[in-house]
């Protein structure tokens, strides 16, 4: 018996849309918070560094699935009523921001010390140093591991199905209970996730070429550039 594909298309397309909405909101939060926390981890003040360190350790240490259940069941009891989508954005966004903070910190620290000293010598303010000297040079270094975390964030969005958001995984599971055909359903949504991940990788490798600054731009063919497979952190 072949699967009733006609009945699958509309719910799955709908689910893919929800997955994308969850992904976009999460990645915006993760990127903004991650850059701020990453910069704070390099602060001159040990107290601020300590708080940022605690933040990163906390969100890297707790699994996103535990966090989302906690936020979904416990926050309302504490008097904080959030809609499901906001809970999803916050949990996935804050969780991923810890990993992005580490990438930002590593990227900024990998800029040669001489660049920082030169910037101090010409009397840049700390903000101008970050904005015009260190950050632009750190960007191409940060992008490959950042691309990894885009894909990780996309994969993490599947947990929102557990708190009742009708994303791709949720729709597939719903169709499975009604129609069966679990093999076809889960392989199809696996392929959709793969396709989305592939599109993300394409987008970021384009950005990588765009953001190469200084003498490196176009000087090296892509195959000679540093590989980034093991550099990116581990997600949860």
């Amino acid at each position, binding site marked *: 018996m072949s699967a009733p594909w006609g009945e699958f298309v509309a719910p799955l397309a709908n689910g893919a849309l929800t997955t994308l909405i969850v992904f976009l909101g999460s990645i915006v939060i993760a990127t903004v918070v991650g850059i701020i926390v990453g910069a704070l981890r390099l602060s001159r003040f040990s107290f601020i560094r300590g708080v940022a360190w605690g933040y990163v*350790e*906390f969100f*890297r*240490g*707790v*699994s996103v*699935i*535990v*966090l989302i*259940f*906690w936020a979904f*069941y*416990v926050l309302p*009891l*504490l008097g904080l009523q959030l809609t499901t989508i906001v809970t999803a954005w916050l949990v996935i966004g804050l969780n991923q921001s810890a990993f992005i903070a580490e990438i930002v910190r590593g990227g900024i620290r990998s800029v040669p010390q001489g660049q920082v000293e030169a910037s101090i010598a010409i009397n840049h303010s700390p903000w101008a140093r970050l904005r015009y000297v260190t950050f632009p040079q750190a960007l191409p270094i940060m992008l490959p591991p950042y691309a990894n975390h885009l*894909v990780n964030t*996309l*994969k*993490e*969005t*599947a*947990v929102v*199905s*557990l708190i009742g958001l009708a994303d791709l*995984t949720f729709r*597939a*599971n719903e169709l*499975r209970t009604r129609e069966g055909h*679990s*093999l076809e359903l*889960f*392989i199809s*949504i*696996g392929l959709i*996730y*793969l396709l989305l*991940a*592939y599109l993300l990788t394409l987008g970021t490798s384009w950005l990588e070429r765009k953001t190469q600054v200084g003498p490196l731009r176009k000087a090296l063919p892509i195959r000679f550039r540093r*590989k980034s*497979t*093991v550099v990116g*952190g*581990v*997600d*949860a």
Partner: protein
Amino acid sequence: MNWDWSYAIAILPDLLRGLGVTIVVTLIATTIGLIGGLVAGVVSAMRIRVLSAIANGYIVVFRNTPFLVQLYLIYFALPEFGIVLSAEVSGVLGLGVFIGAYMAEVFRAGIDSVPIGQWESCTAINLSKRHTWVRVILPQAIPPVIPMLGNYANLAFKLSAYVAVIGTVELLGTALRLGEQSYRYLEPFTLVGVLYLVVSVAATALIRKLEKRISRNRQQLVKA
């Protein structure tokens, strides 16, 4: 709703038992991941046409799809072929296969970092393929990536919470059951979060120590 210490203390033994199950799940899954990852990593590095393509396909597909979807596929789709696995076995197997894809990539990077001169020397002294791998390449490829493998074992620990979704009663599963029984979610979920955090942060610290020791040993090796 206020924190109830007597309830929190009453459920602690159950949760610790759940933590025990979580650790067993993590250990078995990590073992599966290490073996599967090593095989896939070596096969991928050997550049045998069809086999390497299969190994690379495994790495790409399992790294780029959500773990939850893979878990559902194993738990719900395999029975259609007459392979019925319990929730526990499905969970451990799924986690092992998922983490194996990450570990394969790590092994692959370790193998690629062995200088090409080592390969050429093996050819020059006519070592068999098996000896080249077992005596020369792998002993140099694996030690530098041990901390990275540790990080992925830690990831397996955190991801093991997902197996609660298909009905395994580990740490998170215990909390879900307790919540259903008592309608109190504050204490079980908060304690679960704290337990995960404590184990995971301790594991991270341990891995960092290991990393330092390995790099120190290697420096001594280079000097000698």
